[in-house]
C-alpha cells in the first residue's frame, strides 16, 4: 500500500493506506482523531466536515492522495483553543443534544466566520449540515449571537 504524509492540526503524519481511502477514515482509523464523524459517506450530511487550508470540506469525499501539502484542521485542532467563541456560545445556549453532528456544525460555522461570510452565506452553509435531534433552532440562535459579535 502507498505511503502518504499529511499535515493534520499542524502535525505531520505518515500513513500507509489504500489509494482512494477517504481522509475521514484516515483521521478516524489511522490517526485516532475520532472527533470527525461518519454519517453518510457521500457528502450529504456534513458530520465529517474538516478545514482544508481553512475552508470547510467534507472529509468523506476527499481522497488521501489528493491532500498533498494542504493543511487539515479537525475539531480536535479547533478545540486546542477551548475559549473559541463558538465553543462558549455552544455551551451557553446548550445547542447540542446527542452531539454527533456538532463537530461538523461547528467546523462549518468556524470556517464561515473566519472568512467573514455574509449572513446568507452562513445560513446556506449551515443548511447543508444535518442534525437528526433537531438542534437547528439553537444553532440559529448561536449563529445570531456569533455573527452579531463579529
Amino acid at each position, binding site marked *: 500500500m502507498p505511503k502518504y504524509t499529511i499535515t493534520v492540526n499542524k502535525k505531520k503524519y505518515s500513513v500507509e493506506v489504500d489509494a482512494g*481511502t477517504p481522509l475521514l477514515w484516515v483521521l478516524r482509523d489511522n490517526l*485516532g482523531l475520532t472527533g470527525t464523524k461518519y*454519517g453518510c459517506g457521500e457528502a450529504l450530511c456534513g458530520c465529517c466536515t474538516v478545514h482544508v487550508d481553512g475552508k470547510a470540506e467534507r472529509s468523506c469525499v476527499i481522497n488521501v492522495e489528493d491532500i498533498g501539502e494542504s493543511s487539515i484542521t479537525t475539531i480536535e485542532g479547533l478545540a486546542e483553543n477551548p475559549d473559541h467563541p463558538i465553543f462558549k456560545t455552544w455551551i451557553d445556549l446548550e445547542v447540542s443534544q446527542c452531539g454527533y453532528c*456538532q463537530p461538523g456544525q*461547528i467546523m462549518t460555522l468556524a470556517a464561515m466566520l473566519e472568512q467573514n461570510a455574509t449572513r446568507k452565506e452562513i445560513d446556506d452553509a449551515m443548511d447543508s449540515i444535518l442534525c437528526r435531534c433537531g*438542534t*437547528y433552532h439553537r444553532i440559529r440562535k448561536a449563529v445570531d449571537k456569533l455573527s452579531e459579535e463579529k
Partner: protein
Amino acid sequence: MENSNKTTRREFIKVVTLSGGGLFLASFVPLQNIFSNTGDDPKIFAPSVYLKIDSNGVVTIIFHRSELGQGVKTALPMLIAEELEVDWEKIVIEQSDADPKYGNQSTGGSTSIRLNWEPLRIAGATARVMLVTAAASRWNVSPENCLAESGFVINKLNNEKFSYGDLVEDASKLPVPKDVKLKDPKDFKLIGKRIHRVDTPDKIHGIAKFGIDIVVPGIYYAAVSRCPSIGGKVKTFNSTKTKSLPGVIEVVQISNGVAVIADSTWHAFNGRDALIIDWDYGPNANVNNEDIRNELIKNTRKEGFEWEGRGNVNKEIAKGEKVIEAIYEVPFITHAPLEPMNCVAKVENGKAELWVGSQTPQDARSSVARTLGLNEDNVTVHITLMGGGFGRRLVNDFAVEAAEISKASAKPIKLTWTREEDMKFGLYRPPSMHVLKGSVTEDGRPLKFSHHVIAPSIIQMRFYRELPPKDYDIKEGTVDLQYNIPNMSITGTTIATHVPISWLRSVYHTQNPFAVESFIDEMAFAANKDPYEFRRDMLPDNSRLKNVLNVAAEKSGWGKSLPKGKGMGIAISECYESFCAEVAEVTVENNRIKVDRFVVVIDCGIVVNPDLMESQMQGAIAFGLSAVLKGEITIKNGGVEQSNFDDYQILTYNEMPVVDVHYIQNNYKVGGVGEVGIAACAPALCNAIFAATGKRVRRLPVRLNSI
C-alpha cells in the same frame, strides 16, 4: 477487601404499563451497604448501586440508563444530588455497564425520569440520612439537630461540621433505613433548574467517545453484506476478489450474511462491496409497496375489533345531521440517527465483551449470550454514548452481528454499518390507514365519531409469532375519548408484514393523533366552528388537556388575522403521562410550504430541568416535521428502496421554524418528555396548511401538488 454489612433488602417491583403497550419491569434495587478499602485507596461508602462516596468526599453517581441526546445523563444524577445535598459541580458521573442489579435499564417509552423519579431520590435521601445519623452519633446529638448541606453535615447547635468523606466509615456500619422522607418540592434546589448538560464540552470538542469511536487493543474492522430482499439468505458466496484487496484479513459467514474483516473500516467496506454472493431471495422477493398498501386498503372495508366506545355510532341519521367521512394514511418511515449502527465485540475463551450504543443494554447482553450459547454472566456489555437513537437502538441486531463476527474470526472487531445499510436494513415505523366517520348536529354540536385503525402490530413482530387479536399499542394516541362526543367507537385491525417494524420516537402517536386531530378539524369545519373553540367545548372543564389547549391558543395569538397564504393550525395530544397542545403557523405559496412557527405548550408535571425539556420539544418538532414533510420508506422486491439522505431526506436548518415552548408549572407527578412533542406536530401542521390553502392533507408525507 470487601466487607458487606447488614443489608436491608427492600425491593420494589413495579409493573409499569407503557402507554397501553409492552410491560416493562422496573425493580428498585435492593440497597446494599458496602464498605470497601483496598490498601491506600480511599474507603468507599456505597449504600445503593446508584452512588458511592469515598473517604476523600468524592461523590460518584452511577448513570445506569443510555444517553442518546435526551439529556438523562444530566437529569437522572440531578435526582440523586438533590436529595443527597451535594454540590452539583463536585459530583462525578460514571456510566454503568448492563447489569440486572440496576433494575430496568431500557431507555425507551419516555420512561427514564418517570421510572427513576422515586428510586433515585430515595437512593440519595437514604445515603444522606445515614451520613447525618453517623455525624449525630459522633456528636452525640439527635439527628434533628443536624443539617446536611453541600457535602457536609452541620451540627446546628454549635456549627461544627463533618464532610461526607469524614463520615463514610461510620455511615457504612449503619443499617440502611427504611422509608426515608423525600423533600417537599418547594425545597428543591436543583430540580427545576436549568442545569447545563454534563457532557456538552466533550461532545463539542470532539473528545466524547460514541460507540463508533471505540477501539480496543488488537482491533480489526468489519462490514457485512446482507440480502437485499428482507428475509433472504446466502446460498453461496465467492470471496476470492475480496481477499485480494488491500487490508482484507478474513471473510466469515454469519446468520445475517457475509462479513469481511479488515485492518480499517474503509478496507472492510471495499472488501464487502467486492463479494460475489448468490442469494436465495426468500419468501418476500416479490413483495412491493403497493401489496402492503393494498392489504391496508382491503382492511378499511372490514370491521375492526371493538376497543372502546360509547353511545351508538350507527344510530339513524337525524334531521339536519351533517355526516363526514375520510381515510387517513401514513407510510413506513425510519429513525436514521446520524451515528450509524456499530458495535465493538471481543469474544474469546468463552467470554464476550461488547461496547455498544444500545437503548436496551440488558437485552443486548441476553441476546448475545443466547446467540453465542454463553451464560449471561460471561457477557459484559459496556454502554457508550449514542449519536441519536429515536427507538432504533432498542433492538440489538447489530450487537448480535458483531458478536457473531468476533466469535467466527476469533478477533476483537468493530462492526460499522454504512448509511445505506442503516436505510435498507433498519427498522421501520409501520404504515397505517385510518377510517374516520363523524357527524355534527344542525347547530354544530358533535354527535358521532368513529375511528378504525389498520396497522401492522409491533408487539407481534417483536414478541409474538401470531397476530394478537387486540393490540392495544396500535390504539395509542387516539385522544378521541377525552372529547365529550355522545356516540363514539374506536376499532382496530392488525395486519401482517414482512418488513421489520419497530418503535420509533412516540410510536403509534406518530400516526393516530395525525388522523384524529386532523379529522376533528374537519368536523369543526363541517360544524362551521373555530377549530380551537370546537375542541375546547368538547373537553372536560379543569382538565389538563383543556388547560394546555387554552394556553396554546393564548400564547400563539390564535384568531389573529393573517395575510393570504398564511394559516394557523391547532392540535392536542396526551401521551406518556403528559399533555401537550401545539399551534403551527405556515405560509404556503405555489404549493411550497414554509413552516414559520410552532407554539408548544406542555404539562408534564414537575419539570426536572426546563432547558432539557425545551430542547426535547424543539427537537421533537424537527423530528415530527421531517416525517410529515419528507419521510417515506418504500418497498420493492422485498427490500427498502431508499439508501441515503438524498432519497430519504430530513428537515434542514433553513427549514426549521421558530419553536416557542411554554410549560405549565405544577406539582403533578413527573410525566414523559422525550417523545411527547411529536404527537401533535403532524396534525397542527396539516391543520395550518388547510387554514392557509383549503387543502386537507390526509396522506403523509405532504404532497400538495396531488391534492
